[in-house]
């Protein structure tokens, strides 16, 4: 195993010292689970260590860390699922859409989906369903309440919870 060269080790140590605490608390807010947050923070640094990316000249270390952590959370299998599910359904509904999607559009959509999936990660199933039904499917709060078999007030609470979660996921 090749030795880690000192400059990389130094910058990694500096990154850890200065931002590990921040990363941990960001993940804790995001994942709502201290254990999981601690593991993910640890894995984030492990991944950076493994990637041997040059750490010199990173202007936004927190953005770099949160992006790396984001990729960890939405792991490869999940990204594959997003892509498969999207493309499969797209093929089914392609007649209904006016015109067809260019490869660039599909890529842009997949990227947006990955980000939305990350933002929604950690929400409870009902909160996630309420959020998607309201902002994607444009169902009313009354309709969502009926579907989820909860009160309208609860639906509103779910939506607020999801919106706050969006902030936590993006607040770097």
């Amino acid at each position, binding site marked *: 195993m090749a030795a880690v060269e000192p400059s990389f080790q130094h910058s990694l140590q500096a990154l850890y010292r200065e931002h590990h605490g921040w990363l941990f608390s960001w993940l804790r807010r995001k994942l709502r689970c201290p254990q999981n947050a601690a593991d993910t923070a640890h894995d984030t640094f492990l991944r950076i260590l493994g990637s041997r990316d040059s750490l010199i000249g990173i202007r936004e270390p927190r953005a770099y860390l949160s992006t790396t952590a984001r990729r960890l959370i939405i792991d490869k*299998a*999940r990204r594959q*699922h*997003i*892509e498969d*599910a*999207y*493309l*499969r*359904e*797209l093929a*089914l*509904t392609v007649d*209904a*859409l*006016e015109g067809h*999607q260019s490869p660039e559009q599909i890529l842009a*959509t997949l990227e*947006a*989906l990955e*980000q*939305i*999936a990350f*933002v*929604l990660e950690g929400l409870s*199933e009902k909160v*996630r369903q309420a959020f*998607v039904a*309201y*902002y*994607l*499917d*444009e169902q009313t*709060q009354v309709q969502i309440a009926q*579907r989820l078999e909860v009160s309208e007030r609860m639906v*509103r609470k779910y*939506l*607020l919870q999801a*919106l*706050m979660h*969006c*902030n*936590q*996921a*993006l*607040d770097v």
Partner: protein
Amino acid sequence: MSAVSSDNSIEAQAAEWVLRLSEGELSEQERLAFERWRQFDSRHQATFERISSVVAQLHNLRSQRAPVRAALQPPRKRRIAARHVLGIAVVLASLGLVSNLSGYRAEDLFADLHTAPGEWQTRTLEDGSRITLYGNSAIDLHFDAGQRRVELRRGQVLVDVAHDQSRPFVVATAAGSFKALGTRFVVSHGEGQSELSMLQSTVAAQSADRSQSLEVSKGGRAWVRHDALGRLPDIDPASLEQAWQRHQLVVEQVPLAQVLEALGRQRRGHLQFDAAALAGLNVSAVLPLDDTDRALQLLAQALPIRLQQYTPLWTRIERVQTEK
């Protein structure tokens, strides 16, 4: 510690405003409160924009609802759920029970047609009838051996009914129903009231409580509420046809607030205005409904109003004071 708790409360307030803006028109008082809140602290606006950006991202994917929904469904649960529902539907169908369970969710799952704001869609139904959904509309289809029933949940549809003597064709809304035999017509529904406009032949309109009914012929219009109905001034069928074909809003001497409401339904995001302040401004115009940004610009060129865009989700319209 105190910094953390105040951050949390900004987040809660911002979430409340984002939700409030998507729930409908703000009152004048709320608008002022929002304005004050936004300008009070730069973190307020930043948090508001951060949350809005996720909502906007989801909004922008509305034209591809089905694939987007599938992709966002967590992997394991989805497969189980889909199989489960399909299983139930197949069993019910083989027992001939599906039609008896009106309102059952599995049916919705297969029958729903939605359009996003500004997006039109035309479908040929299994009986050969054609249905066009206006932007921001939703329908359920209930077709079986005895009936052809389209439930309009919101928005507008233009129906071109294929002839079938054994099965009446009915468009139903929460306010009432419209029964046709070989005919072409438009039904719109919103806020407890439905409206019918006849393009060809005749339709029988009925209030939801079945106490009132009325026959309407070509060029005629009617409104229907839960327990009442009545006639509206006639329309010119040819120009209504054209407006549907070209996705236009054709208005003649209609209050601006009403026009903005119609445009707002075809927009992603919120269109805000104070109807009282715009009172007295009337519009005669042909406006593109699938490009509401342009429609608003056309209005701004012709009328003493100003457009302000705060975020992609939120456009405000203000009256400009003209010298008298």
